[in-house]
């Protein structure tokens, strides 16, 4: 289980998280929605220790992230796959090497690494692209390689940072389907940060809205769709006022 406990984070004078608390249950996909710059990605980065909270704590499987040393953090990170907003593939490595990189850290045999790379690329429908460079791929393909890199690790948790941002509707739907497939086939717990409501409704079990640094509402998809909260309604309906 992943739990945010009263998290505070500021960058200079800009206060981003102000008492953010949320529990993500094992096996579910939690979608965090909110305005651009509201701190959704910031919250996500606290889970893997890329950012450190000013106050509060993130608990992953009972371990307080901010108290872990580098070795402890490495151990936690080995259970978490992270899909970055722009995929964050390594330009100088081929697609195969990108997917294999995390596996090489785990003292696996070369044959097993190759097998897992093939398997992960097959899941995202990119079989046979092992030798291509990221620069030769489209935006949607890069995101799928990013997902393959995360699932190749067979993690317990996958964190998706704006997985459909900048993609056309069809490619977004492909990515949504992949996220659902990943949860159904691999049984991983997911956290998806997005402001794409169609994607949120498709992949989420529950949706939490982050507003002014804290959770405004957390509910099932259906409850969110029928919410009375004017702030949440305005956001999910995409109204200017």
């Amino acid at each position, binding site marked *: 289980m992943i739990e945010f406990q009263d998290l505070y984070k500021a960058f200079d004078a800009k206060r981003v998280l102000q008492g953010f608390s949320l529990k993500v249950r094992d096996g579910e996909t939690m979608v965090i929605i909110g305005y651009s710059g509201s701190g959704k990605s910031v919250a996500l980065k606290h889970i893997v220790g890329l950012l450190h909270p000013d106050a509060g704590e993130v608990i992953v499987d009972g371990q307080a992230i901010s108290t872990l040393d580098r070795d402890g953090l*490495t151990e936690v*990170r080995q259970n978490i796959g*992270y899909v*970055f907003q722009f995929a*964050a593939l*390594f330009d100088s490595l081929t697609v195969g090497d990108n997917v294999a990189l995390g596996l090489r850290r785990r003292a696996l045999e070369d044959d097993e690494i190759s097998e897992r790379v093939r398997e992960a690329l097959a899941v995202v429908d990119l079989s046979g692209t092992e030798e291509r460079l990221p620069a030769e791929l489209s935006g949607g393909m890069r995101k799928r390689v990013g997902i393959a890199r995360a699932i190749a690790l067979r993690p317990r948790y996958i964190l998706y940072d704006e997985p459909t941002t900048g993609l056309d509707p069809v490619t977004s739907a492909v990515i949504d389907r992949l996220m659902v497939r990943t949860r159904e086939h691999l049984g991983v717990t997911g956290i998806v940060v997005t402001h794409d409501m169609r994607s949120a409704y498709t992949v989420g079990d529950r949706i939490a809205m982050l507003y002014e640094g804290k959770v405004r509402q957390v509910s099932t998809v259906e409850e969110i769709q029928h919410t009375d909260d004017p702030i949440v309604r305005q956001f999910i309906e995409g109204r200017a006022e």
Partner: protein
Amino acid sequence: MIESLGRRSISAIEDIGRVGYFVRDMLRGLRDVGTWGSLVMIQMRRIGVDSLPVALFIAAFTGVVLALQASYTFTGAVPLYFVGTLVGKTMMLELGPVLTGLALAGRVGASMAAELGTMKVTEQVDALETLAYDPQSYLVVPRVVAATLMFPVIVAFAIAVGIITGWLTSLVLLDLSTPDFVKGLKLFYVFKDVWFGLLKSASFGFTIALVGCVVGLSTRGGAEGVGRSTTQTVVYSAILILVLDAFWAVVLL
């Protein structure tokens, strides 16, 4: 005015502290030989082999100019075979290491800052961390080790080429015979001339790579930030090379 001075002083002290922490983390990263060991060779090729043409080009013309300027300065008052002495000593002690260092601050340091800066702003460094790699072991240590090892090699070649072009210039343009040039070359030669130059160049390599990594990994703000980091790396490296040059002269000569 005083407030601004205070702010700048605090910022400078913070920067020094940041570099201190960075070096501490880099030393910690050295323990993970399994990660950086295999990457050092790639960096050695990039830094060493790929930089050789630039370094040799500079050294070649430096040798020519040194020989001609020495002969012009001596103007009959000093035996001409001292051209060999001046070319040898200057290439080994000063111009070989320093000119190569300054040229490679641009080529190697700037390229490291640009590469790491781009990786930083495109979240590739964060991605490495989430894949359970220490960026220090994966990115910094291989570059710093490779630069420290390869700079003396590049400088050794540069010194040799500088002396050879100085000799050829003496033969062709100064009517100095080979035995006379060699006599001058050997005249005040001590082995310290060689190791002093090479030690100095190793320190330049270490510094340029360290600056490139520190600045590159502190990059913020997209393409503009990458450009800023690249420029900063070249400027800081050039300044530090000159400071180190004076430091080694004071300490070892």
